[in-house]
């Protein structure tokens, strides 16, 4: 099946980011396709390149980047939520006159239409939040 996931919370603050990750890994292992992972509300914070978690703990952000690369996943960070919370790619940085970008590899910033499209195109959509 084609499954999409929506993640509404940031890394570490809530378990949602971890549960979503484990769910996705299990789905991929079972041969399902992950159509899109859409990051909304504080979920956009899963896409910051600048995180430095303690060495003895999981690195949630790089974990997403690695998973995306390994399985060619579409990780989409909502532009409106990202603008509010300061998650920026190069084009957004230029557009809004910011002196840096901070998006992690494997993530792309796009509109809420991508969330609705994921609902339309997928067989199942699962939300992880708080």
């Amino acid at each position: 099946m084609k499954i999409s996931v929506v993640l509404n919370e940031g890394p570490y603050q809530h378990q949602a980011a971890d549960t979503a990750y484990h769910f996705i890994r299990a789905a991929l292992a079972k041969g399902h396709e992950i159509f899109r992972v859409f990051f909304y509300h504080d979920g956009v914070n899963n896409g910051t390149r600048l995180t430095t978690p303690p060495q003895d703990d999981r690195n949630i952000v790089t974990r997403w980047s690695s998973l995306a690369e390994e399985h060619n996943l579409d990780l989409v960070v909502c532009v409106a939520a990202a603008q509010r919370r300061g998650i920026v790619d190069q084009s957004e940085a230029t557009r809004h006159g910011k002196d840096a970008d901070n998006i992690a590899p494997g993530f792309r910033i796009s509109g809420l239409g991508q969330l609705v499209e994921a609902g339309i195109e997928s067989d199942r959509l699962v939300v992880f939040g708080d």
Partner: protein
Amino acid sequence: MALLHTVNKSPFEKNSLETCLRIAVEGSSVLLIEDGVYGAMNGTSLNGALSDAGNRLQFYVLGPDLKARGLSEQDVMEGIEVVDYDGFVDLVVGHDATHACL
């Protein structure tokens, strides 16, 4: 048409499980995950309500979340099936849609 409801908050913190039980239609399923797993344990004030609900809904609880919280599968209420992440995926695929009762 059967729905899967997920409940991720403790029933002692938030009313999500209560709301879920109120709206879930007979024949649908409820999967307790994250802090929601506390609702699955024997000996809580919810046992009566969950037992009653068990007559019309199918209950599941995520094993890894029980283990993380020091909860034993032995102490899970009768009628609630323990599943792992694979089982979670199967539940999502096996139901028509999923409602995250956050």
